[in-house]
């Protein structure tokens, strides 16, 4: 199946990595948060990359998911899986209610509104101390277990998180490659034309907003159980920006680009630690430079470059046809 070739490669990579480097910090710890970020970025990419709707407040949904799981398990003694479902239900409902008024906005106004939503949620998390533990955070969140299989080691978290990431990637690929996915992309291309093709743009926007929020909530719940402790700082404005950066850095409207961006942006700070005081500055500089010189994103940029090289090798044609990008893989 040509359509799922990328997913197959990713799965292979995920399986091989711990076999080659067992007990490696970068595999069992950093890669786990990279996979978590990938779940978030893939969901956000549906909204931003495909439907063209910017969100600078995606951390809010991540936070609502995490806190629902945390609160429901520690204070009401629910089991983690029900808590996860409750989180998604709550997040989905909030996203559904907010979608209609927020997604009427365009461009920078939409950016501002989502940013505002993110900040409001973060403030509420800090202020409702009796429920969330306030700025001090919420601890003692129980670990997950799957049919008696306790997810209690770094390696097991690696497996679970990677599996969920692969699942989310698969779901996203399916969505993009369907009637609904085309509706999303059409919305991005021209809203008026999309309407004239019979697409209810309001419903489509709401749908993708809810889906992106649900994946963020799922990631939030996983995060809460993995960390056992959460505080509002993990869900602030900066994290929202980081998520957007992952999507853009990898390459908008490319699911694997989002995964790639998530991994780059998770590993980069780990690697920049050696620069100590210079870390923040270098990070900012890298971000700027990459966006200036590869505005289509790292993954998409490199992939297109590679394709062009391959094509030139095969047949030295002077002007290769512009590759149809991610849109192509539906030629199943």
């Amino acid at each position, binding site marked *: 199946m040509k359509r799922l070739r990328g997913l197959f490669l990713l799965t292979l990579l995920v399986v091989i990595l711990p076999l080659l480097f067992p007990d490696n910090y970068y595999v069992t710890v950093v890669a786990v948060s990279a996979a978590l970020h990938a779940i978030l970025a893939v969901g956000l990419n549906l909204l931003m990359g495909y439907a063209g709707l910017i969100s600078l407040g995606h951390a809010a949904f991540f936070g609502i998911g995490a806190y629902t799981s945390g609160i429901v398990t520690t204070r009401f003694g629910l089991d983690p899986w029900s808590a996860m479902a409750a989180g998604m239900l709550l997040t989905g409902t909030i996203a559904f209610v907010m979608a209609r008024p927020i997604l009427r906005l365009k461009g920078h106004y939409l950016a501002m509104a989502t940013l505002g939503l993110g900040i409001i949620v973060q403030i509420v998390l800090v202020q409702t101390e009796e429920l969330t533990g306030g700025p001090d955070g919420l601890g003692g969140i129980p670990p997950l277990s799957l049919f008696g299989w306790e997810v209690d080691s770094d390696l097991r978290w690696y497996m679970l998180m990677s599996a969920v990431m692969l699942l989310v990637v698969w779901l996203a690929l399916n969505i993009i490659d369907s009637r*609904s996915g085309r509706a999303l992309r059409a919305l991005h291309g021209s809203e008026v*034309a999309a*309407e*004239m093709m019979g697409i*209810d743009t309001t419903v489509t926007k709401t749908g993708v907003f809810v889906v992106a929020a649900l994946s963020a909530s799922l990631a939030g719940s996983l995060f809460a159980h993995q960390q056992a402790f959460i505080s509002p700082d993990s869900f602030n404005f900066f994290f929202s920006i980081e998520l957007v950066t992952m999507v853009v850095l990898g390459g908008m409207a490319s699911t694997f680009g989002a995964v790639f961006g998530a991994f780059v942006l998770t590993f980069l700070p780990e690697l920049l630690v050696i620069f100590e005081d210079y870390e923040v500055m270098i990070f900012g500089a890298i971000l700027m430079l990459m966006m200036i010189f590869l505005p289509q994103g790292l993954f998409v940029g490199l992939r297109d470059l590679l394709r062009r090289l391959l094509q030139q090798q095969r047949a030295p044609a002077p002007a290769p046809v*512009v590759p*149809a990008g991610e849109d192509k893989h539906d030629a199943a």
Partner: protein
Amino acid sequence: MTLLEVQGLTKSFGGVTAIADLGFDVPEGQVYSVIGPNGAGKTTLFNMLSGIYHPDEGSIHFQGREIIGLQPHKMAAMGLSRTFQNLQMFFNMSVLDNVMVGCHLRTGSGLFSAALRLPGVVREEREARRLAREALSFCDLERFVDQRADALPYGVLKRLEIARALAVGPKLLLMDEPAAGLNDTETAEMQRLIRCICERGITVLLVEHNMGLVMRVSDRILVLDYGTRLAEGTPLEIQNDRRVIEAYLGGEVQYAV
């Protein structure tokens, strides 16, 4: 039978009247053209017919049903489709995907069944692809199927818009200046295409500046001037209408045709 019935249509923008008390009937199965000098209100009329603007007054009946106030996607569902004067292509998608978007209403799977890729979805995809390819070949665009829309020349994009609008499966197709910017060969192809669309039983409402094309392709013509109806009739009647000649060529030159 009348497919589209417009009565007393009025629209003004900040005090400037674009369309004033306009009425006309579009008979089914014909090519009906709207002409008029620049600023006569043709595109405004189209935008009202397709639900993008709301008229201040008047009524629009499509297949006997009032359609004012309906959102454009509802109109599409009733069988009204359109192309745009300034291309509204989905440039972020391939040619095939563009036209497959047009099949949106002829398929029905939702977000969640798509996410799980249930067997019905796969079948539906195949059907949508078949319909899209059919529309593409009707517009003679097969060889561009896998290209990205933003890599295509202008003349091809004009036809791609038509293929996409046809994929909706319309009863009425509104075409906004399909020949604008085309060379003579392309215009001749466009003329043939418009007639073919009509022969398929699709009523065409055409706005166009190329008078030669309009005269050759239309069954009836409506002439607009300053948002009002100046004349209406067959191409021959219009060509010999004094008011039309005056409006187009100025009062002093008479009987110029």
